[in-house]
């Protein structure tokens, strides 16, 4: 039987050091809602578990002077929800995170864990992509920044280098008139893995969309940033034609599989349907912001 070690360091340097030294046999523990499921299923048998929840850098929520945010990678959905400022600025990101699993899961699950687990259906990631969030990671070679959409490289795989740990997400200050939203399609009302997930972040000035980003999940090996869909919205008044074009762009961007959660045809259709719904909600929020 494998000997397994548990460490709960209080500094990032300690965590990185131990994690890197484990040379691939280590796993990072934030909320544990992926890691423990995988261990239970026999899919992974780590030699070292590094619990990062005692490290200040990864568990804080900071509102910067210019109105941006830095959210620790291990912050749980339940904790993030309580931060009034973040909830007001980024309701779509929060929605994504707090749709994962159940209330119990949301008490633990984090954006860092959700992103680094590399599931194409990760609920928090489309809205993070739409938000243009930047992930800071720290590894044996020091710190670097990665755009969220550049983190997933395939199912279960990320661009993080060996020994690198997710530290925090940076959200730029929002221009006035901005809003974001996230919707997913699941067969029940809760508890399912997203069959399709769409995040939209946009800015409106006098009813015209001046900026937009679209994140699309569960329809490709990684979460996608769909520039064609965003471009269809930018410069428009989010009229039916613009939304239809953006929806078509989302459907076109799909490269899904048939699996126990959805078919290719279904996912492709639904991506377009959801885009329209999400864009409308983001626009309503933008109009009130």
């Amino acid at each position: 039987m494998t000997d397994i070690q548990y460490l709960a360091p209080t500094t990032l340097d300690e965590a990185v050091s131990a994690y890197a030294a484990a040379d691939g046999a280590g796993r990072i523990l934030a909320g544990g809602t992926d890691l423990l499921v995988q261990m239970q299923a026999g899919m992974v048998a780590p030699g070292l578990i590094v619990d990062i929840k005692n490290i200040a850098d990864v568990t804080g929520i900071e509102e910067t002077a210019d109105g941006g945010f830095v959210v620790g990678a291990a912050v749980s959905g339940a904790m993030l929800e309580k931060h009034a400022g973040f909830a007001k600025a980024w309701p779509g990101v929060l929605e994504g995170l707090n749709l994962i699993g159940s209330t119990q899961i949301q008490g633990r699950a984090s954006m860092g864990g959700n992103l680094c687990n590399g599931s194409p259906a990760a609920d928090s990631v489309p809205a993070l992509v739409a938000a243009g969030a930047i992930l800071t990671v720290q590894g044996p070679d020091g710190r670097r920044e990665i755009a969220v959409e550049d983190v997933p490289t395939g199912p279960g795989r990320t661009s993080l280098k060996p020994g690198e740990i997710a530290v925090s997400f940076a959200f730029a200050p929002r221009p006035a008139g901005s809003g974001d939203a996230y919707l997913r399609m699941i067969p029940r009302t809760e508890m399912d893995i997203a069959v399709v997930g769409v995040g939209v972040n946009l800015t409106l000035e006098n009813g015209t969309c001046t900026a937009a980003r679209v994140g699309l999940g569960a329809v490709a090996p990684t979460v996608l940033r769909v520039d064609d869909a965003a471009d269809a919205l930018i410069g428009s008044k989010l009229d039916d034609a613009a939304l239809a074009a953006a929806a078509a762009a989302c459907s076109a961007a799909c490269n899904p599989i048939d699996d126990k959660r959805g078919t290719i045809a279904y996912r492709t259709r639904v991506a377009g349907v959801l885009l329209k719904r999400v864009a409308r909600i983001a626009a309503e929020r933008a109009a009130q912001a």
Partner: protein
Amino acid sequence: MSGSDNKWIGENTIRPDGADKVTGRAAFAADSSMSGMIWGKVLRSPHAHAIIKGIDTSKAEALPGVKAVMTAADIVDFPTDTPVPLGIQDMRWMCRNVMAREKALFHGHPVAAVAAMTEAIAAEACKLIEVDYEVLPHAIEIDDALAPDAPILHDFIEFEGKPSNIAGTIEHTKGDVEAGFAEADVVIERDFTTRPVHQGYIEPHACLVSVAADNKTTIWSSSQGQFMVRAMTALLTGLTQSDIRAIPAEIGGGFGGKTIIYLEPLATILSKKSGRPVKMTMTREEVMRASGPTSGSKSTVKIGAKKDGTITAAEGLYWLQAGGLPGAPVRGAVGCALAPYDIPNGHTLGYDVVCNRSKVAAYRAPGAPIGAFGVECVLDELAEELGMDPLDLRLKNAAKEGTEAVHGPVYPVMGYVESLEAAKAHPHYSAPLGPNQGRGVASGFWFNAGGESSAQVNVTEDGNVVVTTGHPDIGGSRAGIANICAELLGIDYKRISVLIGDTATIGFSNLTGGSRVLFASSIVVTESTNKVIRTLCELAAKIWDIDPDAVEWEDGAARPAGANAGQFDPLTLAELAARANETGGPIGAGAQINTTGAEGGFGTHICDVEVDPELGIARVIRYTVLQDVGRAVHPAYVEGQMQGGAAQAIGWALNEEYLYDKDGKVDNPGFLDYRMPVASDLPMLDTHIIEIPNPKHPQGVRGVGEVPLVPGLSAVRNAVYNAIGIRFNDLPLSPPRVLAALDVREAAE
């Protein structure tokens, strides 16, 4: 007894086992330990169909910490040519089901088991067992199992003179359906399929077994029948029944799935071999892969009617998956399908089809939801074709007292018509519907059952009462029993304790299932309590020195029966109990009866759905269950059965299904992808209790637990038709299927 002069019957009393259940104290099977306990784990077949050529357990036995290893060689063999029935099972299949014998018949089939100091060591040891498999092609779907080149699971099964995967048939015939169809003005024939589903009990199978050196054995397990556990374990292990004490733990859901055993005989053998108590639990994955779910099915239903709605003939043909060994619930399908209707010409025929998935076990009215699905769907279409309200069509053909059912019996008084009329009159039926919303109705029937039951009613020295019964309580039956006993004795309900005995402490009692627990146990509790009352009257008579016939029992006390008997102050239960010693001894009585008189149960459901036409998602937004329960001894628990059955039907109709990969492995063996309804999926589930007392029961009780699942599948499906105009003949109505059908229709327009 009935009516509003009851004090306890009809009251929502607090269940006697309640405080333990809400504080986490109640002991379920996995909650217990025994001194020196070790852990058992099962090695399961990685192949859906394979000949087992040899098993080498030597490396497992050598692993430090391993205390015992077993294989099928340790299980008693029942030759396949000699039926050995035990209740609803046959030991030939049981001995091959609990552990693979000649063949592994499904992915997950147990092939060996290990007991070791820790679960981790036992699991490690399982990996060291070497099994030589000859992998065979497998067949899981009915069509694949019936194909001309299908792999035949058992060479001892033949149908029409040839090796076959059809293990048997059951048929009912009344009149002449050909003639009946010829008389009809409208005939509708449709094909249906349902996917296999699981009972979904939240508590996995678990047991703790101790076999002492003298073979005295204690089995503590999650089960719907401790006498079944004792008998099956004895037969499979070779121990004698009197050496086994099977104790039913509190059970965390069964719905029929725990009327059979999986782990107990394995733990028993491991305990005997190791000399230690052995605890075994299933993981959720093991439950989904290897315990008995219910059948997937194919059916063809044909109904013919005259223009005025009179049904002239009805026919249902059914194929049900049995799993690796015979025993699909064909009886329920062919017996219940047409049961709510008075039909002059009827024919049902069902096939028991073996295939490479886990052997099915009972699931709440086994077979009946499958039988009813096609019939209730065709009736819906027929009603539309004839321009009739679907409830009116059913009323026109409703079975009543005196109707001869297609499956044989002549019905006594019962409340099917009442359920239809109540549905028509219910505010739900006339509530307005919004866009994309639709309403469906359906009816259903279940046989119910009586069967063997035992009880003991004993009066304590301080004048209170302990009732011991024989059936595990899966729905609150202890509360109902306490209500009845309190009513009979005329004492406060809180003075009665109701306990469930084990095989050593109570007489033989048949399974908890068949909607029979309250029905059967209340008969024996009534008999026992009446005997106790007679004894109490005799004691009072002794004290008063009068004839026992001159004493009556009323309102919790013995009283002189009329002025002629004499002037005596009443003697209460407490007073008599205190004087028990001087007047003859302990006060108590028991009964053991093979109860009869359980007549079938009938119900009608109304379901509203709302469909999101862009996503294909159907949600149930309103639901009403109307059912004749005979007498609601404890109304809240009766409602609970009605609501629980409806919820399972909704899950079966909308999202639940077993998914298999190309290797015959279950692809969704967990609650994430086996999608049962969660709290946010359902609306409030309204109930309407109808009481047409069962004349053959002392309190008028009819079984209530199983009927509520039967109508729901087509109530939901008919509602979806009403909402979006598409008739789905295949379940579940998962969003991709609904959206695809909407797309097809749109393309055609």
